[in-house]
């Protein structure tokens, strides 16, 4: 195969702007999938991805396209996750391509995520091919969308293909543009091997399958390969490319090609996304640029509702990690919740997805504690601690300074909501950076926000203040010093460790009060009065009381039918099972999550 006939590209789009639908149409048009195998949104093959309409993991597929000029081209379409949590994975997928199709919804225009990912593509020197989608919608305004692309991103877009992926309109034009617009890959087949890992997954028969883009040299079956970052060596067992529905062995991959390697790899940790694969016999001297180890940004405790399911939870986490090297977990114990794991996630969406997969695919009932970020604490004796669990936050007297992570956030919304957005960001301790008008009706706002202010309900709050129109993206900026305190929650006078969290001093009172109120709503009346208190150090700053229960059922017992009474007692027992016994207080599981939704 000639390199001139290869095109490696990805698709960038905001959620719901039609990336997966366009991918499906391209697959159809290149007859890569028999119609009978065609399932909606083929590339998103996890249930959760389909339901949420998002791509969690990158995926890739090789297609043959017979162009109008009579030549047959090989397209490697690399799907990228659109969400900020997976920013690093996106950047590695982009690094495997020479170009990107930018899909913009003709009725919505550019959104924050699109912008972030487009800039990322431009940074990687990709040719960006704009496409305006959903021209079939009555509210579509393709002209305006094209102008927005030109004004905001600064790339020519006036002659961008106007398509409807849903109806299959003008898809061929997109494919023709791919050929003329996106350059063919370059590379020397005889140079030492340099291949970029952009994804991997665990196959129970073949071990870890690595997805690579060969940049230089040639990869052959039987050869011993080495991972640059980890130093691990493996003998390749199978090499090939990704067909639309299955892997197709080809024996070798040359520079410019995209494919997979199976090498009986047991541990997915050995195959880090972004790492360079080289040959042991003819190693390259330098790895490809840009590799970094991804670190979790958000931590949360995950506990089985039923303590006996702890080993099942461990097994499930281990299985999930086979496919997701960015998931980290360590055993932890909570007085309130028993044995569980402190898990690290790339972001909130990542956390939600993992929790959902654990519950759905592994049939577990879980309690997830409030997410926490990593605080950097310098002690009076000079030690520096990284705190990912509020319970371990040191005594204020021992702290000389505390820092919290800050993100640089980008919010796009109709201009009428600017006031609301500013109010929200202010409330979340944001620092205003700048604001610019994208056109007469839309603005882009830049803020710096502490990560701990956005880890739970920020996006929901933003949506509700902008009637769902705002989009939001962020990237880590670094640490900044902050006045932080640990807020403890006491039930019946005893601290519930799983409910403790770190908060900025100025917000501690309000937050403490709100949590007490929220818990009062969630904790049912019991035989005894339950005081709910919020405390900093030993000082109580807020208090609510769940009054003692006054009555349960007092019905007549007719004709000696005591089965009814028994049923009531059984019901009581069942109800108890759904509760966590914390000292003498019964707490429903929702209570642990309800403290996350304070904005209601």
């Amino acid at each position, binding site marked *: 195969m000639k390199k001139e006939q290869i095109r490696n590209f990805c698709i960038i789009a905001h959620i719901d702007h039609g990336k997966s639908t366009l991918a499906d149409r391209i697959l159809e048009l290149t007859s890569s999938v028999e119609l009978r195998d065609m399932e909606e949104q083929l590339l998103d093959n996890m249930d959760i991805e389909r339901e949420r309409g998002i791509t969690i993991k990158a995926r890739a597929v090789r297609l043959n396209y017979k162009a109008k000029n009579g030549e047959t081209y090989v397209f490697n379409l690399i799907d990228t996750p659109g969400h900020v949590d997976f920013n690093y994975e996106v950047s590695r997928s982009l690094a495997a391509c020479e170009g990107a199709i930018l899909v913009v919804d003709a009725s919505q225009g550019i959104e924050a995520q699109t912008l972030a990912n487009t800039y990322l593509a431009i940074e990687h020197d990709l040719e960006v091919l704009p496409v305006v989608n959903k021209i079939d919608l009555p509210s579509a305004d393709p002209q305006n969308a094209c102008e927005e692309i030109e004004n905001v991103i600064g790339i020519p877009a006036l002659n961008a293909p106007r398509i409807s992926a849903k109806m299959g309109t003008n898809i061929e034009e997109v494919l023709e543009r791919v050929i003329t617009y996106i350059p063919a890959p370059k590379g020397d087949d005889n140079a030492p091997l340099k291949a970029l890992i952009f994804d991997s997954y665990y196959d129970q028969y073949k071990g870890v399958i690595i997805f690579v883009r060969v940049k230089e040299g040639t990869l052959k079956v039987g050869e011993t390969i080495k991972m640059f970052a980890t130093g691990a060596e493996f003998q390749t067992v199978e090499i090939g490319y990704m067909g639309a529905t299955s892997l197709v062995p080809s024996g070798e991959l040359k520079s410019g090609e995209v494919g997979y390697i199976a090498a009986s790899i047991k541990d997915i940790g050995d195959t880090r996304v972004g790492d360079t694969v080289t040959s042991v016999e003819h190693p390259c001297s330098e790895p490809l640029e840009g590799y970094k180890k991804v670190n979790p940004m958000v931590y949360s405790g995950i506990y089985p509702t039923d303590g006996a399911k702890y080993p099942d939870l461990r097994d499930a986490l281990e299985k999930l990690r086979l496919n997701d090297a960015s998931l980290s977990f360590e055993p932890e114990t909570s007085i309130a919740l028993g044995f569980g794991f402190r898990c690290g996630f790339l972001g909130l969406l990542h956390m939600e997805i993992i929790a959902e997969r654990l519950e759905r695919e592994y049939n577990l009932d879980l309690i997830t504690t409030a997410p926490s970020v990593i605080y950097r604490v310098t002690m009076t004796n000079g030690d520096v601690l990284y705190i990912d669990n509020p319970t371990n936050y040191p005594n204020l007297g021992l702290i000389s300074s505390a820092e919290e992570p800050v993100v640089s956030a980008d919010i796009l919304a109709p201009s009428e909501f600017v006031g609301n957005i500013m109010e929200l960001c202010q409330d979340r301790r944001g620092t205003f950076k700048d604001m610019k008008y994208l056109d007469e009706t839309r603005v882009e706002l830049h803020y710096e926000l502490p990560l701990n202010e956005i880890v739970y309900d920020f996006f929901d709050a933003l949506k509700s203040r902008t009637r769902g129109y705002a989009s939001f993206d962020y990237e880590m900026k670094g640490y900044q010093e902050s006045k932080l305190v640990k807020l403890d929650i006491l039930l019946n006078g005893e601290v519930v460790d799983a409910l403790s969290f770190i908060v900025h001093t100025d917000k501690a009172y309000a937050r403490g009060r709100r949590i007490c109120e929220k818990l009062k709503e969630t904790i049912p*009346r*019991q*035989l*005894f009065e339950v005081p709910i208190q919020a405390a900093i150090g030993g000082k109580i700053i807020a208090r609510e009381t769940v*009054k*003692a*229960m*006054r*009555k*349960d*059922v*007092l*019905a*007549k*017992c*007719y*004709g*000696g*039918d*005591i*089965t009814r*009474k*028994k049923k*009531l*007692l059984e019901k*009581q*027992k069942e109800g*108890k099972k759904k509760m966590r016994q914390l000292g*003498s207080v019964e707490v429903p599981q929702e209570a642990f999550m309800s403290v996350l939704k304070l904005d209601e």
Partner: protein
Amino acid sequence: MCGVYIHIPFCKRKCIYCDFYSVCGDDKLYSGFVSAVSNSIKRRSNKSIKVDTVYFGGGTPTVLKSSQLVLILNTVKHSFDVSPNAEITVEANPCTVTEESLSELFNGGFNRISFGIQSAVDSELSALSRLHNYEQAEAAVFNAERAGFTNISADIMIGIIDQTRKSLIDSIDKITSLPVRHISAYMLKVEENTPLDEMIKRDGSLLKSIADEDELSDRYLLMTRLLEEKGFLQYEISNFAKNGFESKHNLKYWRCEEYLGFGPHAHSYFDNKRYFEDCGVSEFIKNNGEPKITYTDTDVDKAEEYIMLSLRLAEGLDADRLAGLDKEGRYKNIISNAEEINRLSGERLVNISRDGKNLSLTERGFLVSNAVISRLMN
């Protein structure tokens, strides 16, 4: 000693809150039922079974003719060894009895009658879709007294739609001034699939006209106090009586004594088994009372039941009796767990006797009996 319960599954009209088994019938159905239930009693006939209480419940037993009820009672007497001073109760709706019918019942052997009065306020009675008004209820009680009944019981309900504290006090005053010796007082509970339940589902604001948890509890305690002042002592969660007029039959349920039930959906506890007649009226008549039994428990856990049932009684739980029933000592903590008992008694939910042998619920404890009992049993 054994009790006998006869379920008369008929009502003239079903009350909106009721989810017990009853149907509207006609004379043909009534007579078919009488012969079927009599047959069912005869089949079980055993003169070695000593009976000291007979209870006709429903439904509304008095929709049947007095002669029919007496006929069934006589069948009971012929089939079992019924003691001459047995307590023989019939439940009645005030508007289904007359002086004559009551005399016939008394002369036929019934010596206790229980009227479903519920309230002395007519608007409350119609809110419950009861057929009678208070004047009729009053007349029925006096007629019963004239007929010879000295052991008369009345039901009072708390939590009726639009009931107020004042109207409740009024009902209690009026009803206790009648010649009644026993009061059953219970709270309206919205049972699933009753007309009341559907009404509330359609119109949520109805719930607002029923007092809330705290108010209902206060009213219950108020009622307990008022009844006590008038000489009605609480002997069970929802039963109050003048001295010596406690319902012997009802006490059997709470004291884990045996009883045999006859009629559709009637429950029995006999020979360590709990079961019920698992068929409707028409099937019951078609089978001519041939039993169609469903067991709910074939090996009753006596210790567990004793705890659950005895704690509904003012007399409470006796540690020695429990120890006798609980050979494996599964529940020995109930009385010996001092911390828990202290906590509960500190909240005035239970009383423990000085010698630590007797545990009972207080009035406040009765109100939350399910929670207290299930807590004690865990």
